């Protein structure tokens, strides 16, 4: 049987982990402004969703309780009119909630694209089955650096990523910096990220210590290697050393 690597890696070959701040892949531990905005939005949506769910559940239980105690079904023009009015109110309230979500959504979407005016570090990431090719783009040839499976980004600097694929569709994901962006053959994905915090090299027994510093670079390691090892096994790290490319 041909040993093909699991399809997750093919379609999604990029569960990438940002090093330093946590060993988990959770998007709930943001390390950059964009992941923070998304995290705030997530909690707002969770809170609203929970509230709406509890209200509907309460209405259902109330209706069943009320209904089971009746001797006769409620009918007649009076009842119908009352329920019609309630339906109109329900549609109005639902629409208002959805419009609110829509507006918050757009605001978050805009905020994700907003960055201070500064020169960006440009990194070109090429997805391959089963590795990442990483190129630091710089007009000065001595500063053009090629690496594989590791991305080091300066803390606090704007980093512009160009995402391309040579074979199948991959997806670039650094959960505590930003959401996913696909690498699709024939297209170039463009996104900008920024890391806010970094931490010392760690071992798994210790809680990471946060030492944000402009001089530090944060490291991103590929999780999907062409071995049998599952994603998430490689803990990425942070180097307090000077940036490797500048």
């Amino acid at each position, binding site marked *: *049987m041909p*040993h*093909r*690597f*699991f*399809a*997750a890696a*093919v*379609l*999604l070959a990029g*569960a990438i982990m940002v090093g330093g701040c946590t060993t*988990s*892949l*959770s*998007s*709930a531990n943001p390390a950059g402004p964009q992941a923070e905005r*998304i995290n705030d*939005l*997530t909690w707002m*949506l969770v809170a609203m*969703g929970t509230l*709406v*769910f509890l209200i*509907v559940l309460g209405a*259902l239980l109330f*209706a*069943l309780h009320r*209904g*089971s105690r009746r001797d006769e*079904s*409620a*009918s007649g023009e009076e*009842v119908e009119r009352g*329920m019609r009015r309630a*339906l109109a109110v*329900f*549609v109005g309230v*639902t*629409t208002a909630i959805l419009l609110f979500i*829509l507006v918050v*959504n*757009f605001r978050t*979407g805009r905020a994700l*694209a907003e960055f201070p005016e500064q020169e960006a570090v440009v990194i070109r990431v090429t997805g391959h089955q089963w590795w990442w090719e990483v190129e630091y783009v710089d007009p000065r040839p001595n500063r053009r650096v090629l690496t594989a499976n590791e991305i080091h980004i300066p803390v606090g600097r704007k980093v512009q990523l160009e995402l391309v694929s040579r074979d199948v*569709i991959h*997806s670039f994901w650094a*959960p505590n910096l930003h*959401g*996913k*962006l*696909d690498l*699709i053959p*024939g297209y170039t*994905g*463009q*996104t900008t990220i920024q890391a806010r915090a970094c931490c010392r090299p760690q071992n798994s027994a210790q809680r990471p210590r946060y030492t944000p510093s402009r001089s530090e670079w944060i490291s991103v390691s590929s999780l999907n290697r062409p071995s049998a090892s*599952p*994603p*998430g*096994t490689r803990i990425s790290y942070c180097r307090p050393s000077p940036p490797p490319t500048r």
Partner: protein
Amino acid sequence: MARTEHELSAGLLDPHEREVLHRTWRPHEGFWGWITSVDHKSVGVRYLVTAFLFFILGGLEAAAIRIQLARPENQLLDPDLYNQIFTMHGTTMMFLFGVPVVLAAAIYLVPLMVGTRNIAFPRLNAFGYWVYLIGGLFLYAGFVLNTGPDSGWFSYVPLAGPGYSAGKRVDVWAQTVTFTEIAGLVAAVEIIVTILKQRAPGMSLNRLPLYLWAMLVTSFMVVFAMPSVALGSQMLAMDRLIATHFFNPAEGGDALLWQHLFWFFGHPEVYIMFLPAAGFASEIIPVFARRKLFGHTAVVLALVATGFVSFGLWVHHMFTTGLPQLGQSFFTAASLMIAIPSGVQVFCWIATLWAGRPRFDTPLLFLLGFIVLFVLGGITGVMVSSIPFDLQAHDSYFIVAHLHYVQIGAFVFPLFAAFYFWFPKLTGRMLSESLGKVNFWLFFAGVNVTFFPMHFLGLMGMTRRVYTYAPETGWGPLNLLATAGAMMIAISVLVFLGNVAWSLKRGMAAGENPWGAHTLEWAVPSPPPPYNFAHIPVVQGLYPVWEQERQGPPPVVTGLSTTRPEVLLTTVLDAAPDARNEQPGPTIWPLYAALAVGVTFIVAIFTPWGFVIGPLLLAVALIGWGWPRDPGETEEGPEEAEGSHD
């Protein structure tokens, strides 16, 4: 022309006449009768049974997935087999169970509910079933022979293209999809025509039961959505088999095109499964609330609105592809908007329960479970329609949780409700209520225990389709919990199967109308005779059987031949009698035609000659199919008909 006579009701028909009708409509005896039948009830039942068998197979695959993921670094399934199994699970549940079971239920119920004797185009109906069966068997034959598809139920290119999926696995997938799309399209056309042209007189559109509205909208959605994926699957097959380059960017093709074609079908498909389920709920809730449904018009509008808006959502499956922001925003707005018609329906169901006197039998329990799960799945749906959130949740277990809440909650639960509700009509026996309640509570608890933790797994970063994970990810405990829930679901389905087996033998006799329901199928014996209605009733209200109980037997249609299989055609809006149409009797040609289609697609995987051999065989089958009937059997004009009927 058909006349109506008040004094003549179904009960007054003399036994001889029933005997004649029976002989006219019954299928042949034995195995031959089984494969030549064009009766919508026998085709519908076998369609249902087949779809349910695929549900069991899909469920077994789900169980294998859950066992594999129960603990970190499990070695039960190797990655290659795991790829095949999750692909088979998705493909089976969506293409071999989801859409087919919806259409199967409609093939059985729609003719009874509109008050006619058979579905429109009955031979096409039989053909559709055979095509579907061949497609399903073909997929599983491939799986057994280590040729099961392995690139996901959506087969994204280029992974599914010739360069990265060698062998025949993806070809098997593409052709299976083509088979099921053909079956879906023909069934949709039959259902549309049956609803629009074969309603009993008096069932004008404003008296159309909500399930029929739901099926009408759904069938139109099938007609518009399925060609998109059928085209896509054929383009994929051509890329793979004869080196076209539709999806190959190196030669000017476009990898993203596949995603558009697939999701333009794939998103409406969710509603193709949900709308009939909502239709079940709108039919069944009034019966158990013992009250007319509140907001009939609002629910009709909600169904139609959902049908339209569901075609404007597909890009929300593609938020991470980097399409332009402004364009994506439109799809966010549409995705949020669809919550309004869904909410209106939920409101109307709850209001009906509030105003009625609910009776907590198993069908209603399943519908209450449906409302709870559907609201939860709908809320997570609103969450993922938000682009920033979706960028994080996309392709994670959060999506797995969301889609299973929607598919199981809003589709499988109403389907079980419908099964408990209509089982007496299909078989003449009631399902056991006590086993039904065990079935419900185990299923409801199981779904929540399985899928609720997956929301957290998704937020913790667990991605879809991984075959295993490392212990230090911390995903182990929640996965174990999910697996325990899956086992609860498995036990509940076993209880259900036991219930069916027991009730078929010893269930209580049902009688015509055990639930006190209101649509026309409850006015005929259980199970219905081959001709459905001895006399076609004239419909006098939105709840015809309840009207009959109040006003006595309805007027009925006379003037249809009893010696030839005739159905009454009525006008589209008012359902006024329009014409009589003679239907074909039992025939083998649909099976031959389906086999010819099977040869075309299956041989084409191995050699392009399939597209030459298959159509030649199909031509033979179609000539047999269309061979003129005996002149004595041809249709007569209305003038002659007046004198000739018995």
